[in-house]
């Protein structure tokens, strides 16, 4: 659990972060989002003391972070950044094993851990002896995430880790990260300026502007009731309806009746409402057949159901 109490950070006369308070529960995926220079990265780095806070207090599981020696503190917190920060003169395996080595684990334990992490992140074992410049951007970022997870920290800090990747790779890694989070139950603080990424990943979305927290809550809460025009426009303005639809699965909206086979174009139960809407537009139809993973029909989705449910609830 991470708690920030009235935390302020000044650089000279400039106030980068202005009296923010935030509480991230254990196992929660918290995304800090905002325009550049809003203080989100500064906030992130104050948590592992790469930047010291000027005022206020930051607690980790109830203990002020200044009670820990900084190096010890950082070894307990995973850290991944946009440029990956992999050491170019070290192999992938050595990069991943960095923190365990700092913690003086035994050689065989480090090796086992590295192998396990590479498997977890879908990196082929032969990558162990490659150097970072031999990897693609997506592979390098996987190594970066593996390195952050190496010593099995409870907390993971990620500063736009997927910012430099192409859209397809980025989306794949987002899905994998979300999946990883569900399995490993880490407390994650994630910084991004990409709203789609934020909406796709967050349990709790924290919108920052000019060093302050403007609004926080679940993605749905923020989409439904943005605190002001700034949050509304950041969330996509008129596109908000589609963004919200992207958070809801077809399975939650369909009517579980057995339809006549071959009646209409079909959509997967796992697809999102905006994908369903897109299919309706494309096929110029008001009804979709819903299928399960095995392509067996399980229900039916009408335009009315899609629209009605989207506005109420």
């Amino acid at each position: 659990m991470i708690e920030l109490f009235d935390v302020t950070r000044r650089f000279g006369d400039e106030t980068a972060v202005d009296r923010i308070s935030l509480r991230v529960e254990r196992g929660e995926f918290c995304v800090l989002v905002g325009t550049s220079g809003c203080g989100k990265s500064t906030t992130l780095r104050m948590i592992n003391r790469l930047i010291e806070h000027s005022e206020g207090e930051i607690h980790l599981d109830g203990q002020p972070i200044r009670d820990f020696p900084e190096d010890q503190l950082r070894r307990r917190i995973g850290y991944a950044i946009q440029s990956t920060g992999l050491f170019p003169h070290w192999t992938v395996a050595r990069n991943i094993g960095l923190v365990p080595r700092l913690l003086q684990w035994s050689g065989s334990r480090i090796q086992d851990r590295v192998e396990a992490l590479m498997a977890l992140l879908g990196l082929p074992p032969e990558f162990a002896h490659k150097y970072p410049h031999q990897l693609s951007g997506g592979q390098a970022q996987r190594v970066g995430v593996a390195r952050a997870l190496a010593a099995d920290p409870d907390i993971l800090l990620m500063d736009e880790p997927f910012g430099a990747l192409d859209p397809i790779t980025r989306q794949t890694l987002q899905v994998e990260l979300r999946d990883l989070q569900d399995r490993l139950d880490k407390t994650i603080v994630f910084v991004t300026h990409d709203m789609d990424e934020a909406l796709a990943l967050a349990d709790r979305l924290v919108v920052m502007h000019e060093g302050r927290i403007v609004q926080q809550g679940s993605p749905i809460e923020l989409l439904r009731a943005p605190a002001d025009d700034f949050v509304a426009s950041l969330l996509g303005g008129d596109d908000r309806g589609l963004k919200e639809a992207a958070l809801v699965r077809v399975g939650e909206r369909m009517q579980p009746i057995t339809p006549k086979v071959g009646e209409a174009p079909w959509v997967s139960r796992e697809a999102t409402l905006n994908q369903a809407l897109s299919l309706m537009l494309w096929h110029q139809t008001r009804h979709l057949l819903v299928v399960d993973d095995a392509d067996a029909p399980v229900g039916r989705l009408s335009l009315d159901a899609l629209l009605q449910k989207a506005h109420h609830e």
Partner: protein
Amino acid sequence: MIRDARPNRVLVSLMSLGLLAWLGLDALSVAPNRLVQGTPLNPVEALGWWVTLVGALPMVCVVWLAWRPTAFRLWASLGVVVGLLMAMPLWLSGAVVAVLDPELPQARVGIGPGFWVLLFLWLLVLVELRIRLRLRRAWVWGLLLFVLVVWGIALSHWLTPLALVQEYQARSDQFLEAVSYHVALVGAAVGASLVIGLGMALTMRRFDGLRRLGFGVLNFLQTIPSLALFGLLLAPLAWLSHQVPWLGALGVSGIGWAPAWLALVAYSLLPMVRNTYVALEGVDPGVIESARGMGMSRLQVFFQVRLPLALPVMLEGVRITTVQAIGLTAVAALIGAGGLGTFIFQGLGQAAMDLVLLGALPIIAMALMADALLGALAERLRRREAA
């Protein structure tokens, strides 16, 4: 792999120039004794038309091969050029026997301009071939080793009338001493400037004000002519050795190794500090940030990340400094610092050009070797992390 059907202009022109030098320039000179100006001889005058034409043939052959340069033809050219470099001392041995009058034991043979030009051009051809054939440096050095062996045999057995060899034989003890002294002085200066330079670069990184001051002073030092710097150090060092007896006992005085070493260090500092500073600053800040973020201590970040990543660029500084110091040490002979420069200035004083060569050739060889060795080392370090 190489399908370039157009003539390789570099090889063709280098070898054509080589042909002209062979046929048109004097390759040798013969003098009845050490002090008399020699009579120049061209290859025809030395060994006759037939041998000269046979000697020209391989060069014509390379021009022909380079006209349509396939990989095979380039490899053949490489063989021919290495063969030529090996044949050179053998031809010289034959010529020495042919032109020397056995009744004049004092007579000596000098090496003429044609010979040097050919050596230079053929080495350039070798460089071009290395690049075209994408050969490793070490590989070419290996080839040159064979050439050097042939040269060594020829020099020790058949080329004794060569003026250069005679100058060497007259002072073979001094020569070895001079070479080792030269190397020691360069090593001590580069070593000291490496330590001081690293210290200065680290201090400058800490304090921004010192950075400007430091580079200002170093730039100024670099502009003082080397002889003037030696002169400037003369008085203070003489005074110092007089005041502090143990320094005097160590051999510190206004002339000799002490001022030479100090001046060499002073000149070495600018390239050393600049490269070290740039190298340390140039490390990707993202890498440093993540190293800190992972919980490495400041010392661990420096020794495990920043220093190893800066090393290739720092080595570049060592390379520049070493090559520069090898040359400057020659000048230091003027203030009695010893080394190979001694021969150069003696030779100049006695108008004995071959004595000058005895000093100059090893200096050139040392500089080339240091350059190649340190360059290869930096390249090797860099290759691993080429982004």
